[in-house]
């Protein structure tokens, strides 16, 4: 499966311009006929919206329609799956979401999955939970490559999230992100990007999954989105990565056998499945105590 990861630099709040840019990317990729194209978090609006999120959020069918219109207008022929982050309006409840749609089917666009970000960063430069409601479930879904899951940005920083995704059968984890770059004292790249790579590589290697990371780039009011779009193999190897500052596209071939081989070589996921019941039923875990104490 050929996947394309788009390091995208939106014009802040200018949805028509960003849809036009999305269309141009589809046209550019059409000759390669990727089966999966991944855009970052908040791809069509930019990330830091504050109160404007209520003006720019749309429901999932509208987002799917917008993507499909660009895909059709681009001249692409083969069916293609597309992931993009967006601010979602669910009848007046607002989420930081990512949609997975299938374009190019005769009966129109299909919404395969919508993931609503569960970990909303609300510290330091971040203020998501002031404006948004967190998602309640990490679900997996089926793709041409196999079972997949989406984790949005901070979702992926919690090791339990890729763990749950893998336990639910994910062989592919897609991570749309918008990460303000910080830390210029860490060597050859931004410290925040170094940390991202360590987290993503660790998740891939521990569970034997492909991890695809697509990030925003460009500055929003002084905060530079740090790019660093990249892909990791099920062994945790970095397959390709982008720099911090430029719009670009990474393509990567995903091979089903690689997942099996990685898991066969180091069967950590199988080991976890065996031990998990003992871990999960440990009544010393605080969350278990809280559940028992609740009325």
């Amino acid at each position, binding site marked *: 499966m050929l996947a394309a990861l788009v390091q995208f630099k939106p014009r802040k709040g200018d949805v028509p311009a960003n849809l036009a840019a999305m269309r141009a990317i589809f046209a550019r990729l059409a000759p390669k006929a990727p089966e999966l194209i991944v855009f970052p978090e908040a791809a069509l609006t930019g990330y830091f919206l*504050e109160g*404007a999120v209520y003006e720019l959020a749309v429901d999932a069918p509208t987002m799917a329609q917008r993507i499909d219109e660009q895909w059709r207008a681009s001249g692409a022929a083969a069916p293609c799956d597309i992931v993009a982050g967006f601010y979602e309006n669910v009848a007046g409840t607002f989420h930081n979401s990512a949609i997975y749609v299938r374009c190019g089917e005769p009966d129109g666009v299909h919404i395969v999955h919508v993931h609503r970000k569960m970990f909303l960063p609300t510290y330091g430069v971040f203020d998501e939970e002031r404006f948004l409601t967190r998602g309640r479930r990490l679900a997996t879904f089926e793709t041409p490559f196999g079972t997949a899951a989406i984790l949005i940005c901070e979702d992926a920083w919690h090791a339990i999230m890729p763990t749950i995704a893998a336990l639910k059968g994910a062989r592919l984890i897609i991570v749309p992100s918008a990460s303000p770059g910080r830390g*210029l*004292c860490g060597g050859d790249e*931004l410290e925040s990007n170094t940390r991202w790579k360590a987290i993503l590589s660790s998740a891939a290697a521990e569970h034997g999954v492909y991890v695809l990371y697509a990030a925003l780039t*460009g*500055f929003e*009011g*002084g905060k*530079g989105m740090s790019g660093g779009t990249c892909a990791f193999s099920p062994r945790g190897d970095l397959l390709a990565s982008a720099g911090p500052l430029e719009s670009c596209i990474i393509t990567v071939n995903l091979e089903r056998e690689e997942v099996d081989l990685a898991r066969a070589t180091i069967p950590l996921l199988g080991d976890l499945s065996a031990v998990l019941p003992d871990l999960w039923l440990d009544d010393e875990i605080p969350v278990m105590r809280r559940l028992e104490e609740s009325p």
Partner: protein
Amino acid sequence: MTMPLIEAPLDEPSLVINAALTARWLEAFLHDELVVRRGIGRAILGLSGGIDSALVAYLCARALGPQNVYAIRMPYRTSSPSSLSDAQRIVDALGINAETIEISDAVDGYLKHAPDADPRRKGNVMARMRMLVLFDQSARRGALPVGTGNKTERLMGYFTWHADDTPPVNPIGDLYKTQVWALARHLGVPNDVVDKPPSADLEANQTDERDLGITYAKADRILNLILLGYKDDAIVARGHGAADVRLVRRRVDATHWKRHLPTTALVSGTAINEFYLRPVDL
């Protein structure tokens, strides 16, 4: 054979920047903030002859092209002649546009009405006059004013409120002074400019470090630890003098107001920046 004992030192995050990456980051910032966001391809800055404005001139020239950068020298009659000549060296090295506009008449015109003004008040009048000139020249040339204040002076409150801090865009405001030095050396700012004692040049023989009562090298490390949340005793445990830590902490705590917009009385549920929340770029 004695078993080796390896003792880990107390952690103190480094201030040593990757200068090449920092330069690329700040050039992209300037391009995005001026050209992409505002559609303005020209920058204007006050060029004092000191390291901060020299570094910003270098960054602007790299981001926008030297032909799109306007450096305004605004000496007062007591300003050091070497400041003017240092500024000229930077203009010549970069090939940027430059103009010298004396502020003596304008400043003295006001000070005739303030005969009791002490050096501090006079310095503030000069700083605010320079910003008045810079913004008028900005309108004349269709160029965006770019700020030159660094993180150390912002944190120590060592600037004139609504003067040095006024330009809408500042590429070096999150860099400590010692990081400004490192980046300036990397970009080729003349050594004489980098090495001379930093001075606001508002009074004869003035230096920043004498005014502040501490060297930048010491202040920056202490500031970094304060901002990371370390308490005073933990900073002292990392080898810093208790008096230095108290001095820096006092200056930071006493000047939070200078890093904010004016305090506005909240009387509604739509108070700007309290309930009505919009990012600066949307």
